[in-house]
């Protein structure tokens, strides 16, 4: 009797469940993904126990970095028919005699935070070199010139007018000087903003009745 040769088979693993699982994960991640917008500066927020979440939309953020440079960001708002960012920049252009082309305005509408004096604004919108762009980000001036309020004041003022529902968040670096933060708060109060959201990282702290001094 001839020997029956067992056919050589490559071991096969059924990958269908794996693929199923991966698909589900992939779809979930795709749907929940909210990409990190490229920020103008790196901020290490201080910690707090607050669990309140920052609003997604209708938020105006003033960013203060370690060196006290000030950046600004406002979103387009919940209503996609409104073009808050475009409106604000147009108003700013009028205030400081800078005219922007529709293309430049459109570019600006899709960007995130920024921080430079109005003089450099056009240059920043048109340059494509990212290193050059970074160099232009010297912070928004906060000092008043010729009895005129500062540029930051007008950014806040026009943003308030363009989107009155926008909440104000202050995102400061832990190492930033409080003097600068106070200056920003003062400026906001001049714009009738009395409620600030300070952006922090969540850090739980447990204090129970046992910790009470006897």
């Amino acid at each position, binding site marked *: 009797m001839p020997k029956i040769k067992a056919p050589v088979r490559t071991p096969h693993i059924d990958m*269908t469940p794996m693929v199923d699982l991966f698909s589900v994960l992939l779809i979930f991640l795709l749907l929940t993904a909210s990409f990190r917008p490229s920020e103008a500066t790196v901020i290490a927020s201080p910690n707090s126990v607050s669990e*309140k979440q920052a609003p*997604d939309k209708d938020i105006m953020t003033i960013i203060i970095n370690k060196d006290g440079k000030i950046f600004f960001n406002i979103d387009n708002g919940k209503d996609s028919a409104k073009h808050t960012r475009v409106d604000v920049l147009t108003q700013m252009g009028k205030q400081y005699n800078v005219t922007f082309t529709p293309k430049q305005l459109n570019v600006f509408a899709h960007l995130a935070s920024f921080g430079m004096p109005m003089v450099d604004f056009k240059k920043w919108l048109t340059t494509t070199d990212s290193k050059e762009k970074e160099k232009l980000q010297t912070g928004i001036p906060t000092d008043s010139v010729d009895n005129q309020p500062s540029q930051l004041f007008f950014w806040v003022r026009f943003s308030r007018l363009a989107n009155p529902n926008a909440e104000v968040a202050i995102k*400061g670096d832990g190492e930033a000087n*409080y003097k600068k933060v106070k200056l920003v*708060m003062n400026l906001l109060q001049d714009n009738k903003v*009395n409620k600030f*959201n*300070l952006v922090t990282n969540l850090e739980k702290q447990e204090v129970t009745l046992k910790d009470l*001094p006897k």
Partner: protein
Amino acid sequence: MSEIIEQEKGKKGGKRRPKKQSTRIDMTPMVDLMCLLITFFMLTTAFSKPKVMVITMPEKKTEKEPEVKIAAWRTLNILLTGDDIVYYYAGEANPRKPPLPALIKSDFSKDGIRKVLLEKNKDLFRQITEYRDKRVSGKLLVADTTAESAIKKMKKEDMKGPIVLIKADDKAKYKDVVNIIDEMAICNIASYAVVDINTVELGMLKTAPK
């Protein structure tokens, strides 16, 4: 899939049996690709949304209004001057009523300023914590908003806890101010305010213990 194979069988009849082909698809490349995509998305997604701490400042006064008088025995002044140091003194520093109170040095650790605040605020703290514990253990069933307003009411009715005045000089870091406001939230302090530092206190800071 199995249906298609059956159809094919029917067409060809029994003449020549077609080579039985495996219906399996090699899924390895697909899995590879998916792995890559998943890793990419995992790394780029910002999962933890930033948290915010809300602080409401009193409206700026346009004209000189009489300042709000607060009881000196309830006042606790906290002075911030950077370097993770907290100075505090109770009562008021009035140069017309010497002697000036001495500054006491403390820090942001568990046994630092928190102990002082808890000691001063123990009645309210106990009241609020007991209320929260009751909710957590299930003895008390109330909605979130009801609990919040109940705690708010307790804070409002509290007449013994300290009134904390937070003052920061130019050397203070933003971190210090956030930390101390956070400490107010931890200790359930009912009334606190961030106010400007005055010259008397600046002078006191100069001679403060290092």
